[in-house]
């Protein structure tokens, strides 16, 4: 269970204070797919980064399995990211000098109980491509690698910031399908941040943000399969 309790994140820009996240509270149940939706600048990435332990809150508490991560020190945050969080970026952020397999492998080495690298790569459909370098892959393939990399260390939560933002819609759908599939299989909470409203139909839960505040927080009783969604 993930819980945000009155979380605020303010940035100081000269004399202005930017309220990137302004007093938000919500809960997310385990193993569910959550979509955080909102226009650009509404505070989605900030919310995700706070949960990912990459940024510190100005105020409020964030619980993962009952532990308040805003209380963790730098060292503990490292461990938190290492063991509990998987991250998928819009621009993949793979290490260019490592092959597909190595990119996944170097992350697998971080934890004691990782999934099997080759199995994972098979799972994301990269069996044939695993000895290639990122520069030789397409955007969709790159995102698959990123997903494999995030999954291999069996995270509690998989955080995806605009995972389909740089992809065409067909490829985007395939990636979303993959994300849903693997998170379900491994009982991982999946949180997807996007500005694309058509994604709301596939989620178990949709949180809408605007200007750093929650506009709505609804549970989707009947999420659609990705193929049913019109983009």
């Amino acid at each position: 269970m993930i819980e945000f309790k009155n979380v605020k994140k303010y940035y100081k820009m000269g004399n202005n204070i930017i309220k990137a996240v302004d007093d938000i509270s919500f809960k997310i149940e385990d193993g569910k797919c959550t979509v955080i939706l909102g226009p650009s600048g509404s505070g989605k990435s900030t919310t995700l980064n706070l949960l990912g332990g990459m940024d510190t809150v100005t105020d409020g508490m964030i619980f993962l399995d009952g532990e308040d991560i805003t209380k963790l020190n730098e060292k503990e945050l490292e461990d938190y990211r290492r063991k509990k969080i998987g991250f998928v970026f819009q621009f993949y952020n793979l290490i260019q000098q490592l092959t597909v397999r190595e990119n996944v492998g170097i992350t697998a080495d971080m934890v004691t109980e990782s999934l099997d690298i080759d199995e994972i790569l098979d799972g994301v459909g990269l069996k044939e491509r695993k000895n290639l370098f990122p520069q030789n892959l397409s955007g969709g393939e790159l995102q698959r690698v990123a997903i494999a990399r995030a999954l291999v260390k069996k995270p509690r939560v998989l955080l995806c910031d605009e995972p389909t933002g740089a992809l065409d819609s067909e490829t985007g759908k395939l990636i979303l399908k993959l994300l849903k599939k693997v998170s379900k299989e491994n009982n991982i909470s999946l949180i997807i941040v996007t500005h694309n409203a058509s994604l709301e139909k596939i989620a178990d839960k949709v949180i809408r943000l605007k200007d750093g505040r929650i506009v709505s927080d609804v549970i989707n009783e009947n999420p659609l399969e990705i193929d049913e969604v019109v983009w």
Partner: protein
Amino acid sequence: MKYLNIKMLRDMKQNFTQFIAVFLMAAISVLIFSGMASVWTGLNKVVSDEVSDTNMADYYIKALGITGEDKEKLLKTDGIDKVSLSAEYTFSASDGQSEINITTVDSYDVSSFTLLKGKELLLEGQGIYLDSDYASEHNLKTGDILKIDNIAGECIEIEISGLVHSPEYFYFTGAVTETVPNYEKYGYGFVSNQTFEKLCMQLNYTTAKVKGNYISETGDFEEIFGERFICVQDRGDFAQYSRSEKESSQMKKMATLFSAVFILLSLLTMYTSMVRLVDRQKEAIGTMKGLGVKTKQILIHYASYGIFVPLLGGILGLIIGRFTVSKALMKVKQTTLYLPEWKLIHSPYSFVLIAGIMICCVFASVMAAKKVLKGNPVEIMRGNTNNSKMKKEVKETSLINHFPYGLRLAFRNIAQNKIRFIMGIVGVMGGMVLIIAGFGVKDAINSSNEFVFSKQFTYDIKGILKNSDVELEDVQYLYETAIELQTADEIKQTSLSSFEAGEFYNFYDNKENKIGLPDKGALISRHLADEMGITAGDNIKIRIPGRNEWINIYIQNTVKMLSPQGLFISKTALENAGAAFKRTGFVTDSHDANYYSDISGVKNVITRSEQLENTELVADSVMSIVKLLIMASVLLSVVILYNLGILNYVERVREYSTMKVLGFYQREIRSIAILECVITTIIGWVLGLILGRIFLKVYIKIISFDTFEWLSDASIATYVIASVIIIGVSLLVNLLLAHKIRKIVMVEALKSVE
């Protein structure tokens, strides 16, 4: 263009490290080189001015009792334009504390002197024109009375008519036992014939100073002087003058060689920095191109980067060099050379150097910009011009699959940035080489002096005799003279030392085994032997001044004799070869120095520890330059390594922040980040050790005079210090980078790319 200039300022802020690296490199290179160059340029100028102002002789003909008639004959000889006759003798000051070498001439046509104080330069008169350095050391000024003992031991009072300097006394040590000028003990002066006769009781000219382009051929002189002819020397053989040329050229070689390595390193660094700088401007270049800025304008814009930064650095170097390097070097040279004045003159080469650096930087930035400009604007903006040269695929069987990921990364990074890798190695290596050379010079001086004054010589006191018929107790007599040495190929001026039985001079072979002085044949110092291609078993010929015939000498062996360079022969062997042994000096370990200096037949004495002190004085002064060089080298290594480290960091910061987000520990990221630097440092260090050794040997060989063989083995401490410095610098840079990595704001770093 105005906006481009504003842009340039903004770029400078953003690429501070690169600009600073280029700036510092230019400044340091110019500082070192120009600092030294202006000393020798000034020295050469002062020397050549004084040589031409005083109409200094081109040749010195030595003969006994040169007459006016001889002079007429000389003047009729082809190629001789002007002649002055001179006589000289060294007198003691009446207080017995110093000696003055006094010359008289029949005219000032050739080799006059520079009048520094006093009314006018007279040929006739009662007074003395005294060496100004001696005068100032003894608080004497024009109009004061100088008291000198004449040849009969009577005290003669002479008024000082003026203070002078002569280029014939640039390097005047006063006695062969001394190696550095000592104004307190030795001076020189000029007097009229009349005054000279008062001092010497007689006047016999022994040197004809000649102006002209006479080509050395002694036959004519033997015809004119007959038996009285001794030898002819050209200006270059005249050590009291030519030392100034030698010192100047030594300085030149020392500075040029050192700077060459230095400049090469800086150019490489500047080049890569400029390339890197422009490379990072891809987006800006693409935008400018897209906005329709002309290619030429873009190129000019980037070329201007290459002009201003090094120009400013160069000018700064020029200015600072004058107050640091020049000052220090001048101080050193002042200990060995008597000059009427010391000037610093900027060498034209310093400006050539600045221009060269600018050209290199302009070239680098324009080339880099051109490369980037080739693509279309959109491609450029998206950063698609960096065609990373990663191989397509890695085979399952590839060896690299057995390495840890960090090493794989490092290897591939290296493979992708070969030039930078090589640069890094060259930087570390260069730093090592320069530091080893710097400290090595000190080692060389110390160990050479140590060898000369504790292994070669074991006497306590060395004395020079006034005349050869003095009888002393408990001494080993020496005969030291200049000789001409002839092999099948060449004739060279060198020295001969002959010894009566005794054990104060020790001879060693190359393996430092002691060799006795043979009864047949001579030993030759190995440096001279190498130079002239002489080996043990050869027969050579020598000629002693004042004697016309060549004497055959068999070379028994070459010996490790650092100074003096020349032949060493026992009295027996010398007499067997057909030459007379004339006592010119002695060495001993009984009594003390005062005992011998009080004996009337003894001209002067010096203790071995005084001799060592003299050389240490020179060594100390050399060290002050070496220290500057070392400091510059360290700074250079810091800049190179830091620059490389930063380049590396900036390129990888996105990867590092990704890793951080993925949960890599600080130390894991750090170890990956510094691995490349560590590999570079290790390779550069090993190569630097090897190359430093070789460079030092060459360096010492080039800067040493042919009268002294410098040992060129650096001590272990030197290698250790150089290693500690370089590895320390490398570590420091890594620490800085580690700090930067720790400070990465993940969110920012990930965002900035989009």
